[in-house]
């Protein structure tokens, strides 16, 4: 083998390991030191060492074990060196002993314990600022860099990077434990993990056409994380519900855009473009979740998706059921977003005037004034009641608030259709 082929092979092996085991290796190292940043630094140095070493000596039989051994040594060296003033001798000994387990694990690489779930609980600990939990999970479990995360969450890379560093410092200094919470606190702590995973998914979803690669990747990564949680906690109905919800949304991705990239609302989608395998999988997950007997937000949202899909597939109207599901969801969340969607379902059952009365009131919740779906929903309902002028104004605001150009064009089309009707009158 010439040296270029060796380089190539080493890189391919390293990339495969990174994809397969990055989060597992970080979780293993961080759980033993409490220091996520040190684990990341050490593992990145270990990967660099691998790219230098493997082309010459050939890839090792167990690349994970090799990386773990090198990373462990790097961590101990760095604690002995630069951080000496912060780490007492006794603490260093504890660290070294803890990492001793890394050496043992390295001999039996298939038995590297999977502590990714514990690490996800660390990242979404109540002591960590809620807004940084999703970015933190994406970085430490999946190895996404701050730049990619910043672009998906629409912030500057420098600001995102600073917040990630601060969160990791907090984990280390405050002594947040690396473990899956006990039974009694598991449900509330799991909610925080699921919320973070869903936030990552939602950020990816703001680019449904998949033209922005960073965002498109995020939905796939978030689905991977949700899958991981359901594998590690197979009896948690909300985790199953979240994965089902994501699968339902993902199943209709292709149908949400027309041939020329225009936005296609659910009612006008081509059913042939739906991914039936994903829908079946989502339905099976929801059945499994409901058999466990504890309802929750994500199961209800998954059930709503399921009801919408079922209506279009069977042609059987089920608006009463949909309104009931929104009622249950609203009782749980009290969210004005839920109230808006509920009002749209009410319109199908009782007409647009009843729906307008059921809409949340912008005067009692100022956030609605900046929420595009509120204005778009209002506009749709106003059109149906014949209040064209008010509808036109509501569309105007919705258009001004939308950041997706395809949705903006869709709203503009609706608005101008309205104008021509008005002229025709």
């Amino acid at each position: 083998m010439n040296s270029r082929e060796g380089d190539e092979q080493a890189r391919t092996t390293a990339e495969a390991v990174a994809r397969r085991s990055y989060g597992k290796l970080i979780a293993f190292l961080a759980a033993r030191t409490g220091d996520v940043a040190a684990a990341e630094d050490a593992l990145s140095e270990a990967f660099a060492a691998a790219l230098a070493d493997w082309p010459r000596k050939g890839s090792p039989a167990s690349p994970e074990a090799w990386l773990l051994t090198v990373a462990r040594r790097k961590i101990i060296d760095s604690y002995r060196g630069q951080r000496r003033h912060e780490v007492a001798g006794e603490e260093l000994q504890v660290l070294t002993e803890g990492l001793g387990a890394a050496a043992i694990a390295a001999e039996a690489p298939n038995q590297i314990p999977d502590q990714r779930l514990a690490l996800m609980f660390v990242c979404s600990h109540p002591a960590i600022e809620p807004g940084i939990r999703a970015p933190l999970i994406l970085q430490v479990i999946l190895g996404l860099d701050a730049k990619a995360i910043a672009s998906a969450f629409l912030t500057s890379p420098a600001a995102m990077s600073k917040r990630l560093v601060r969160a990791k410092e907090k984990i280390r200094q405050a002594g947040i434990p690396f473990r899956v919470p006990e039974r009694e606190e598991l449900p509330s702590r799991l909610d925080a993990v699921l919320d973070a995973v869903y936030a990552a998914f939602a950020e990816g979803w703001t680019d449904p056409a998949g033209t922005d690669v960073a965002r498109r990747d995020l939905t796939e990564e978030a689905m991977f994380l949700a899958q991981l949680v359901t594998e590690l906690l197979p009896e948690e109905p909300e985790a199953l519900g979240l994965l089902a919800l994501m699968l339902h949304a993902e199943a209709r991705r292709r149908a949400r855009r027309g041939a020329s990239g225009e936005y296609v609302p659910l009612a006008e989608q081509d059913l042939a473009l739906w991914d039936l395998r994903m829908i079946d999988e989502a339905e099976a997950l929801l059945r499994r979740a409901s058999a466990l007997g504890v309802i929750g937000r994500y199961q209800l949202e998954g059930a709503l998706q399921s009801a919408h899909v079922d209506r279009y597939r069977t042609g059987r109207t089920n608006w009463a059921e949909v309104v009931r599901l929104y009622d249950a969801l609203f009782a749980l969340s009290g969210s004005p977003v839920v109230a808006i969607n509920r009002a749209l379902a009410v319109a199908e059952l009782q007409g647009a005037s009843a729906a307008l009365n059921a809409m949340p009131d912008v005067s009692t919740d100022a956030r609605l004034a900046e929420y595009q779906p509120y204005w778009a929903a209002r506009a749709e309902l106003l059109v149906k009641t014949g209040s064209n002028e008010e509808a036109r104004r509501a569309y105007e605001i919705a258009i001004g608030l939308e950041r997706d150009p395809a949705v903006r064009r869709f709203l503009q089309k609706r608005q101008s259709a309205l104008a021509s009707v008005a002229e025709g009158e």
Partner: protein
Amino acid sequence: MKYILMAYVNEGAWPKMTKAEQEQGAAAYMAYGEALQKAGALVGSNRLRPTSSATTVRIADGKSQVLDGPYVDSKEQLGGYFLIDVPDLDAAISWASRCPAAAHGAVEVRPIWEM
């Protein structure tokens, strides 16, 4: 790890309480301290006199400035602390939630910077 649990309470409420209420309140803190001790978690604790007794000192332009009163004026004031030694933040949070101050004020949990 060592943590300090700082109890922030509205110190103005104390003098307005009846004697029986004050006794009950003090007993709750005593019981809490004892529970910490029994669990082997207590390193030290103290109750502070009201902020009306506080004096704030700083050096500006090479001269010491001494001011009557606390450093920050807030709705709730630091009324005491518990220094504890527990395995991790979750254990510290669990003790903080049992502190009577958590129910009528707030408890700030801070890790100790070990030298």
